[in-house]
């Protein structure tokens, strides 16, 4: 599983991407976020306002109840501000 972070989430976590093994207990984006938050303060700060964070699985926007598997590319980021 590859996880990517962008903008201020990247800064708070201190990494732009990580390769991890998905724990057996985690099946959804929501579950993944809970698991990440438990890993440390940087994650807790990055996901503090979970309702504003957007998630993409394999480069498609998803809701947080979306399934995740170990082969997925999962990205977390704030609302986009390009253009």
């Amino acid at each position, binding site marked *: 599983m590859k996880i990517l972070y962008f903008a201020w989430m990247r800064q708070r976590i201190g990494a732009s991407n990580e390769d991890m093994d998905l724990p057996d207990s985690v099946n959804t984006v929501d579950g993944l976020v809970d698991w990440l938050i438990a890993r440390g303060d940087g994650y807790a700060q990055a996901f503090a306002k979970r309702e504003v964070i957007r998630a993409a699985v394999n480069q498609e926007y*998803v*809701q*947080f109840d979306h399934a995740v598997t170990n082969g997925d590319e999962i990205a977390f980021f704030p609302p986009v501000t*390009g253009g």
Partner: protein
Amino acid sequence: MIRVQEEDFDIGAELATFCAGDTSIGGVASFTGLVRDMAPIDGSARTIKTMTLEHYPGMTEKKLAEIEAEANKRWPLAASLIIHRYGTLAPGDQIVFVACASAHRQAAFDACQFLMDWLKTDAPFWKLEDTDTGGAWVEARDSDDKAAARWGKPETAS
């Protein structure tokens, strides 16, 4: 056609080539987004020194291609073009360019606005403004969500 690039682009050259030779075209609408020198932060304006655009390589191209395809589904376009830069830019620099060519001007105008509105809310770019009082990530604006919604944009996933 879509392009995501760090280098600057030449609007005149892009406009001259993106729909060249197609004499069924009656109008070309285009929009260029530029880095402004002032950022409204916490209600007061601050001077921008640089703006850095971060993006999600891979997903950016995918989303821009989807947005362009949607525009071509909704309007009879002879040609369309989206160019979006990333990296560190200065006030006055070009950020984004969109252009739509059609037999009729209203289709060209509407599609051009649609492309801008949807890419503002869907394309994974983030702006970091370096101002005279420090750096700050640009926050998403309600007005952009409203602009996208007028084209029937579904709620953003979260």
